[in-house]
């Protein structure tokens, strides 16, 4: 077969990657684990443009678990993250969202950066986990490096421009417990119909001091469930009324319809997901 130049570049630094992405007139695509990009055909799209393969850039795949924060390179794969976070109760939501989703071969390939940069992927498990954990996203562009909240990243990611890379995710550490629950139609390898991540801090008398709850899969983009969060403050964890409380706030969501499930069904799952998550948290904080 004839040699086809410029179909793939392998920069060795973030600066070289930004240059490769900005210096072209044709389509250029940053490539991380390629597990979304290579499924273009199944979405009725074509694999085209020049691939800028990020896998040869050092320091983008590491995970650093420090006392005050966890810092994860954008190229860290799901399996590396799940192993790196094992045993840290505050990070359990992200450990579960990376370690118990997709399948083992995909977890070895798919990266955290690729996951959150896929704006068309409504059912991400990682995005709600990062929302609940108050993560920040480090972005590098020709103008320099900046840090933005996950919510800001989600609302601007489609318009960030072609020469922008996510390089790192930074998550503050708190004396909190977290979890991630999801409901799939079948089992292994399925995307969730709906998912929910929660992180709470608890007072000595078992009342909830702070609560962050994020929901994915239901709407096109994951978001925090603020009415439910507010209603949780001051509740005793042992009261076990989480399904009922959650049921009062499902009108914050407008479910999306697709071939996988109708929107109303996704919304209807939320109290059950909340119940599952808070039963787990009740046990894990006991």
């Amino acid at each position, binding site marked *: *077969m*004839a*040699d*086809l*130049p*410029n*179909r*793939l570049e*392998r920069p060795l630094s973030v600066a070289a990657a930004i240059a490769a992405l900005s210096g072209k007139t044709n389509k250029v695509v940053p*490539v991380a*684990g*390629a*597990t979304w*990009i*290579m*499924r273009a*055909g*199944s979405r009725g799209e074509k*694999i085209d443009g020049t*691939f800028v*393969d990020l*896998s*040869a850039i050092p320091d983008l795949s590491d995970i650093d678990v420090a006392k005050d924060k966890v810092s994860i390179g954008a190229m860290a794969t799901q399996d590396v993250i799940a192993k790196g976070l094992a045993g840290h109760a505050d990070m359990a939501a992200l450990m579960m969202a990376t370690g118990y989703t*997709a*399948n*083992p*071969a*995909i977890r*070895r*390939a798919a990266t955290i950066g690729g996951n959150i940069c896929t704006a068309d992927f409504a059912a991400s498990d990682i995005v709600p986990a990062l929302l609940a954990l108050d993560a920040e996203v480090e972005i590098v562009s020709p103008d320099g490096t900046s840090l933005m909240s996950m919510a800001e990243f989600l609302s601007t990611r489609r318009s960030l421009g072609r020469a922008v890379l996510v390089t790192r995710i930074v998550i503050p550490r708190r004396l909190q417990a977290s979890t991630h629950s999801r409901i799939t139609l079948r*089992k*292994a*390898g399925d995307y969730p119909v709906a998912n929910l991540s929660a992180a709470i801090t608890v007072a000595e008398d078992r009342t909830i001091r702070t609560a962050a709850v994020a929901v994915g899969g239901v709407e096109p983009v994951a978001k925090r469930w603020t009415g439910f969060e507010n209603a949780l403050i001051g509740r005793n964890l042992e009261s076990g009324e989480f399904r009922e409380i959650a049921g009062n706030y499902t009108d914050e969501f407008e479910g999306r319809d697709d071939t996988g499930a109708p929107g109303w069904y996704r919304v209807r799952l939320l109290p059950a997901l909340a119940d599952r998550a808070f039963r787990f948290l009740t046990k894990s904080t006991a």
Partner: protein
Amino acid sequence: MTTSLMINGEERSLTCDPRTPLVDVLRNELRLTGTRNVCREGYCGACSVHVDGKPMSSCLLPVGTLEGRDIVTIEGISQGDKLDVIQQAFIDLDVIQCGMCFPGMVMTLRPFLRDNPSPSRDAVKFALVGNVCRCTGYERIIDAVMSVVDATEVTE
């Protein structure tokens, strides 16, 4: 652009479009047709190969990203005529039906048994969650795996 990589212990230089999925290069250019091309979505595991010793779905790997990597396919794991112990167990216990899923199952199981020489039945099932079989119902596959669990030949 040329991509240089090892395939089954042989150095190869590939000049195809570097965005081509590895499974297509293996099957269409190198005629290594043991690697199956089924869902092309990372879902079924039939296209599994080892990349630096780890099972990966070759339908989702652009070949140009594999520069310098060590690839082993199902053709590369037997020793001449002597089949790998898992392949042999599948034959001995008459597990295989259409055969679509088996190369991928073997490629997943081999490193799994290397790293977990005495797994429980449930652990084997969990290891195979990314390998779909439409024919057998899985239980006989697990029986065959459990029959070789203590075999010492599973090395890499």
